[in-house]
């Protein structure tokens, strides 16, 4: 039986759904599963780690792990992988995962596959499916090493119903601090906002909203819908939206149930970050905008006119 170690995706002291999704997939291919959780004061998350469907929980809980640092984080994962004798180590799609996975792979002399959307065991080999060239093609990749470290693309796997785990907590020793890469400060993202990666609905603004007035107009719609509020590159470069709001290959890759692109023309790098969404609605005044090629519903019109109507219509059904 294959042994799969899932790295718990923890943000703002909460366990994210992706952890359950990865454990569900690991369970569905008949693997023995473990999870490794890394952070500070995370004891309260242990029941959640069990319920997410893991048979063993490796926990590295130390004040020094409060702020992400790739070196110590990777050491914890490698430690858990060795103790569990994992065949595969799966990270959720996150900047932490992308930074740590190649390190863990080198430390374990394992293969590394990023942005995978599926995994299968074919004969003696593990094979993964992953997009490449800005999502324009898919690759089937054969792993020729005994172990594989993978980063799973957002939205690739679904959480199973009614999964249960077994509590078996193993405490990991705190790793050495990386003295050559010292995190001096964390400028935290605005708190209280809905995380783009978790949001069921994401609404993003592009060049078409022009300025702060346009941004604020669409932000009200996002607020009404409790939606994640994202951006194309143009509005980030223009200083209207924060870097961490950028949806696209540079930035966040999202796959919500509903993605609304407001005033976004649809550059390839942006599309690669959102074309896994279930349903896409685009509002743009240019009927030839490339965004309409991927949108399930397209409204050709002036967003300054359309967005207030959109708000009013949605309010009618959402009271």
């Amino acid at each position, binding site marked *: 039986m294959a042994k799969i170690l899932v790295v718990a995706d923890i943000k703002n002291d909460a366990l994210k759904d992706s952890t359950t999704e990865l454990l569900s997939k690991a369970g569905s291919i008949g693997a023995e599963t473990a999870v490794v959780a890394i952070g500070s004061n995370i004891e309260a998350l242990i029941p959640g780690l069990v319920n997410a469907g893991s048979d063993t929980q490796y926990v590295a809980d130390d004040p020094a792990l409060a702020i992400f640092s790739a070196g110590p984080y990777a050491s914890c994962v490698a430690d858990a992988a060795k103790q569990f004798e994992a065949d595969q180590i799966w990270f959720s799609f996150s900047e932490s995962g*992308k930074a740590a996975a190649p390190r863990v792979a*080198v430390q374990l002399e394992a293969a590394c596959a990023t942005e995978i959307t599926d995994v299968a065991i074919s004969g003696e080999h593990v094979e993964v499916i992953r997009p490449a060239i800005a999502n324009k093609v898919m*690759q089937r990749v054969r792993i020729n090493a005994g172990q594989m470290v993978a980063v799973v693309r957002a939205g690739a796997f679904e959480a199973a119903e009614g999964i249960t785990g077994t509590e078996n907590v193993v405490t990991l020793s705190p790793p050495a601090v990386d003295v050559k890469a010292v995190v001096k400060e964390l*400028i935290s993202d605005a708190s209280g906002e809905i995380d783009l990666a978790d949001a069921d609905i994401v609404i993003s603004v592009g060049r078409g909203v022009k300025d702060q007035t346009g941004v604020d107009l669409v932000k009200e719609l996002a607020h009404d819908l409790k939606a994640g509020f994202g951006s194309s590159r143009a509005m980030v470069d223009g200083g209207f939206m924060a870097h961490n709001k950028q949806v696209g290959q*540079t930035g966040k890759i999202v796959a919500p149930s509903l993605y609304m692109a407001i005033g976004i023309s649809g550059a390839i790098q942006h599309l690669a970050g959102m074309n896994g969404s*279930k349903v896409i609605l685009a509002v743009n005044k240019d009927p030839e905008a490339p965004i309409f090629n991927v949108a399930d519903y*397209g409204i050709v019109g002036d967003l300054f*006119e*359309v967005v207030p109507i959109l708000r009013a219509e949605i309010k009618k059904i959402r009271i």
Partner: protein
Amino acid sequence: MKILTTVKKVVDVELTIRVQAGAIVEDGLQYVINAWDENAVEAAVQLKENNNAETTLVSIGGGDNTDMIRKCYAMGIEKGIHVEDPALEKADSPVFARVLQKVFEKGDYDLVITGKQAQDTDSGQTGIMLAEYLGLPCVSNVIDIQVLDDQHIKVSRLGDAGTEIIELELPAVVTVTDSINEPRLPQMRGIMMAKKKPIDVMDLSALGISIDDADGAAPTSEIVEFMASKTREAGQKFEGDAAQITAQVVSLLVDEANVL
């Protein structure tokens, strides 16, 4: 400060990519510098201009990389190394990282700057693996580099919880994202001077590495086949009276798509 920048020649992602019988159709493809590597080159050139850094680029594989390397010279890079070898055809990220390790060890560099990923594979592993092989500190997804002194730099990284400010002891490896800068367009004078600059071309044996298990540089993965991406079809597009079509779309989102 001596800087090594990596540049990869990749397929132009703006063009249509076709897949046939498990392979990418070569016909009609064009090749360009990896966009994130162009940001790495710009970052290196800015450190040359502002902090008297020496700049060298290295490119691995890609066939004739003369035009791409000359472009980087025209942007301000001083020296170029091109590692080319038939054995590189099956190279994956660990192999690229092992080759870069050899280049690094021959050059006494203080800082390696790479793009955060290459547009042909979108893997984002090579720079981080290089640091791990060399035992050097590494920060990925960097949006700012400041020189503190001969031995230290301060970088900003876009992380999951916000922007991380990290002090790095040199030598170090950073991978940059496109928010770090806007790559300059080469000027005529630079283009003319670039034509005269030599490119140091070498094969793997000259570097003292072979692609096999003995050097720990064998590929750990192989692409079995390429497949066409599942493309989204254009859906329904509405034009006309804003109030009417918007109301119509909202009711479709509710009744047809079931997402509101």
